[in-house]
């Protein structure tokens, strides 16, 4: 087991302290020096450095950040920067410590990014449930304004302006989808927009807009300070830089780990997180947030990079690793995930609205013992094989939530087909001793409201 200290930890050296680094402390460490330096740089050269570093979006899709920035139409102003801090993907908990403990690093990152994309206004869209994050960010932004780091003429430089607006969401997962985030920010129902046009062309209030994850933006000052080559020290194929892995589930030491992309999933679980809890065996891993296909124990010896995980048939996503041991019924786990997606579907487009709840109804019915012989075929045709574009939902919806709802279903059935069939054949869940379920009493059909309210 390698020592944890073997790796340089950039973003979270003080995480154990669990306290917020306010402005005074941050300045003592040389804070905002990079932002001052960036003032003298050409916007193009900042973009070029970020491009050179190979920084990829940390929100889930892993799109190269520098390339995203270069999509902005020339001469179109105003432009906006929206920071996606609506961290709602189940299992993901990396942006929260960043905002709560390193708010000024984020603000510095925002300033550098705004200078790079020539935007004067940035919005931080913080998940509604992240009350403390929002409070910390608000206070930190106020500190930065008071110090003259934000507002008109930042750092005393004539004509340079950066404003930051901290906005709290209202608790909808869909508002983490970048275009839904923008509609929500505009004051409308959080509905994803039709694409094209993409936000870089027509985003917030119809203006060119860049949307980046918190972790992505917080990396920018480090890249500008240490150079692109430094960032590329940690590299696996086209995934560069240290990244934060949120590990949850049945491991001894769950938490947020900052590691290079070369670390394997096996090392992450067994070395860093102390392995599976006592006396239990690993059953499956969800390697990148709840929407990605599941991996079995024999598939985990893979580097935790976009390419490494993709090679195993899953996705790195937001690098949120969820570990389940053999006490977990895969049908129950899938029902839990399906409930999440059907609950969080915005309801705008047909395949996701109808498909996500249909999936949930079938999976829950199977788990409750009411499975029918054709159910797995129906699930398969609805969700496909857990690959993009297959099935009735994936690739047909306005945004990717439809895909996210479908992928786990296809992969879960693929990985644990026998267990699903056992549920259907025996009419009960072997994982729990339940003689008569509520659903069985109702003829095996789901007869319960999704929110737990029985229907009269």
């Amino acid at each position, binding site marked *: 087991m390698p020592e944890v200290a073997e790796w340089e930890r950039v973003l979270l050296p003080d995480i154990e302290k669990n306290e917020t680094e306010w402005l005074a402390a941050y300045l003592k460490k040389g804070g905002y020096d990079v932002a001052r330096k960036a003032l003298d740089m050409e916007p193009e050269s900042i973009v070029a450095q970020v491009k050179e570093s190979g920084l990829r979006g940390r929100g889930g899709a892993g799109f190269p950040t520098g390339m995203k920035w270069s999509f902005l139409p020339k001469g179109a102003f105003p432009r906006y920067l929206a920071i996606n801090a609506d961290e709602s993907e189940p299992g993901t908990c990396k942006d929260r410590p960043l905002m709560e403990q390193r708010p000024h690093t984020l603000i510095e990152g925002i300033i550098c990014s705004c200078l790079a994309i020539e935007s004067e206004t940035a919005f931080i869209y913080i998940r509604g449930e992240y009350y403390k994050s929002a409070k910390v960010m608000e206070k930190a932004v106020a500190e930065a304004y008071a110090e003259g780091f934000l507002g008109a003429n930042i750092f005393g430089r004539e004509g340079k302006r950066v404003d930051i607006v901290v906005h709290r969401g209202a608790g*909808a997962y869909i508002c983490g989808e970048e275009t839904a985030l923008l509609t929500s920010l505009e004051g409308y*129902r959080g509905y994803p927009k*039709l694409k094209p046009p993409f936000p870089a062309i027509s985003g917030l209030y119809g203006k060119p807009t860049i949307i980046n994850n918190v972790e992505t933006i917080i990396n920018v000052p480090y890249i500008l300070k240490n150079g692109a080559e430094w960032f590329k020290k940690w590299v696996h194929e086209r995934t560069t830089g240290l990244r934060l892995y949120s590990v949850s589930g049945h491991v001894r030491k769950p938490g947020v780990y900052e590691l290079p992309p070369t670390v394997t999933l096996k090392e992450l679980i067994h070395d860093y997180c102390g392995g599976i809890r006592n006396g239990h065996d690993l059953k499956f891993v969800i390697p990148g947030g709840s929407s990605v296909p599941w991996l079995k124990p024999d598939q985990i010896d893979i580097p935790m990079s976009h390419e490494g995980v993709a090679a195993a048939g899953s996705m790195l996503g937001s690098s949120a690793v969820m570990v389940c041991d053999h006490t977990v019924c895969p049908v129950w786990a899938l029902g839990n995930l399906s409930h999440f997606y*059907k*609950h*969080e*579907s*915005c*309801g*705008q*487009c*047909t*395949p996701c*609205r*109808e*498909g*996500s*709840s*249909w999936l949930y*109804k*079938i999976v829950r*019915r199977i788990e409750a013992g009411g499975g*029918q012989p*054709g159910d797995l075929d*129906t699930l398969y045709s609805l969700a496909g094989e857990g690959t993009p*574009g297959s099935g*009735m939902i994936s*690739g*047909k*919806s*306005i945004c990717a939530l439809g895909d996210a709802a479908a992928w786990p279903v296809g992969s879960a059935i693929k990985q644990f087909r026998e267990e699903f069939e056992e549920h259907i054949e025996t009419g009960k869940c072997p994982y729990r001793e339940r003689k008569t379920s509520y659903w069985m009493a109702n003829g095996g*059909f*789901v*007869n*319960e*409201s*999704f929110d737990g309210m029985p*229907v*009269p």
Partner: protein
Amino acid sequence: MAQVTKGPACGIGATIGYGAPAGKVGRALEGVPEDQLFTMTLNGREVKARKGETIMEVCHREDTYVPHYCWHPSLSIAGNCRLCLVEVEKVPKPIIACQTQVSPGMVVKSASEQAKTAQEWMMEFLLVNHPLDCPICDRGGECQLQRYSMEYGTSHSRMADKKRKYVKPQADPLIDIERNRCIMCTRCVRFCDEVGGDHVMGVFARGNDNYIGTFGQGPVSNIFSGNVIDLCPVGCLTSKPFRFKARVWELTQTQTTCTQCSSGCKVTSWTRNGRLYRTTPPSRQRHDHFTINEDTEEFICNQGRFGADFSAHDSRRGESLVRRADRLEPAPFGDAVARAGKALREVVERHGGESVAILLSPRATNEEGLLARKLARDVVGTWSVDWRANQQSVEAANAVSAALRVADGDLESEPDVVVIVNGDIAHQSPVLALRIQELGRRHLKKIVMLGHYHDPYLAGHAAMSFHNAPGRTAEILAQLAGVLAGEASVADLASSLGRTEEDVRELVDTIKSAQSGLLVQSLQDFDGRYAPAEVPAAGALRAALGEGWGWLPVTGERNAVGLNALGCEPGEHGIGARGLLDAIGDGRIKAVVAIGADAIDPLGNEELLAGALSNLDAFVLADSFDSPYSRLATVFLGMAGNLETDGTAFDIEGNIALVKAGVDPVGDSRQGWRILTELGRALGRADFGADSIEDVWTQVRAELAADSDATLAALELEGGTNAAQFVVQRPAGGARNRAPEHNPGNYRTDGLHLRSAAFEAPKAGTAPSSSDPASAADGFLLTWGPHVSGRGYLQNRASIAEMLLPKPFLEVHPADAAAIGVKTNQFAVLHVNGLRTKVGIKVGRGPARGTVYMSAGVYGPFDPSSNAGPVEVRIEPLDELVPDQGEALIAAESAPESH
């Protein structure tokens, strides 16, 4: 030149649904610059397309039907039903046709295996929660979901679990909402946001629990709300008045035009056994039957949709009556006409032809108008024939006539700039306003608003608006004309308008730089009090605007243009409707023939009219109803109702359209043209009139467009396949464009300006803003205008007249409202000429500062138009709120009770 314009033929084929609405979506490519055109492939065919078009628009033009629910040509693209998924080469997954723009060389396959599978899947999804209640659903037979299930869906559903269900809300008195059937296409929501303009519908809750509803659970308040019934592709929104009355395939459809206002919308009357069941926008042929087109862009207003059944009112009288010894006794039609002829002959012999007046309802067809005029001029020998009883003064009536005679504008040409002067046009001629709104919203034309009242419906789309005090509009228009002609300075106009010079210069530049434009002027505000001054001013402005511009004076009366063009007016020699009571009083008029009692009803209250009419030697009334007037008649001739009449009528833009009888006349009643023919013959002219409607039409055609040979059947092209196409163009050089008979200088204007002196124009350079103190905090000037659903002789007889009656609201400018401390939905006491009445307040930017606006005919006994003099009002706020209709319903409705 009257000619029938034919649009592109509607192709009906195996894969084709409806023909594209002519000239709207998927516009023809003629005249598009070559550099904007390119070729692409659609289903193996090379087709031309224009830059910026979507796949759906190209498909529409190429007669290729792509299934869709949420897409509608008049509404913004939602892209949420996903039914229009098509295959595009080099794109890995199917993409939606409604939103994807075409590009050169694109290869689209709308019916490939991939596309069809995707469409089939979407249909299965939509049916997952849709109840299988077609047998009890009112949409059955014309349901898009039913149709697509057959054409694009699968024969069975794999859904085995319980379906989602909701509690049924009671939100709107006219529209029934059955949420279980909703497929969330959000057409209704977008319609209310974009066309209706009241933003009252919305999507509530999230995910599969979401549902449509109204904010505050109240009714859908806009005057076009009924259209959401047609827009709804499923049985979620259905018509309450029509619910459970009939199955649509049992009804007979008649392609006709609405008889209620000057918009003259094409409609389909759905009848059975002599009864009108419903009115809808024109139905279209699909395969072998006619049905509602869910993609229609021909929206109609609620009054036309729900208020057209007044002919079936309880007071309907089919037989004729003859007065014998102070009693009215039923008589066969022939006897009654003979008796009427005899009575009129006696009057003519004793007092001369000039002592007879013939009054026409403004809803009279061209055929009735022509025969009435001929009866007056050629048979009786009187100048006194008139249709303008709705105009509140002789001067106003003459102004309307003068304006209509020289009007030369229409919306068909899609003018670049629309200048609107005054007027609650949305409530006088609703669909005209809707089409002006479309110019601004969809075609990005500029709308400029002038005058003392700005239609709130259109104001939201206005690029510029300039208020002035009531009575000063003529002056402003004259100044604007002066500026355009280079004779007056922008500074003076700016100071008159109380706006900055930049603002006014922008206005002038906008008008000057426009290639084409339209001057829309409402003539009915304030009972036409200012029309005598404003019409000549607008005429002068029209002259200054020059080539490319048109002038469209607006009055709400149905066939004002036709009756005006046919000369159904007394001119300088005769006695018009507004002079009638005086003329009866001093004995100049001894006999009156009224075609439709609404030809005399607006002239005064019942008492006044009864007093005057009882002094007549002969009063011949042709009407459909028992009324106070029928009881005074010497002879009452039973006349066919609005759905029983054939003929033609013009809309306010000068387009002619067919009015077609859907049912036979009730009892012994006759159509108006037949009554006039028989009356002429009873007066001794055996050759008078005509024996068929086609013959009368020939006479009308000869007057209006001598060169034309259009038959009535030609007006109803292809059996009504495409109602939008039975349009005869405005007759250029015909009777319509004769020089006005009136010298505008002769208008009497003294005493017509109510408070122009007392009204101080805002100072130059001080644009009115909300921080200004109210200019008349102690007293306001009450302005008003007619409302198409307001109380009236015929409106009152609609079966759901009370539901259609607009909510009485007093509209107050925001700054004035702030000054006196009233808010929207607050009650206030209105002091008018010593009278007091309680009114609800609506804060809006319609009225100019210092004025308040209300729809006339809404308050019943208290009606502003009964006040002859200046109306100064005081508003006293009350601590009471107008009860929200929805609040009472909230208790009955709860969140969706799902699953």
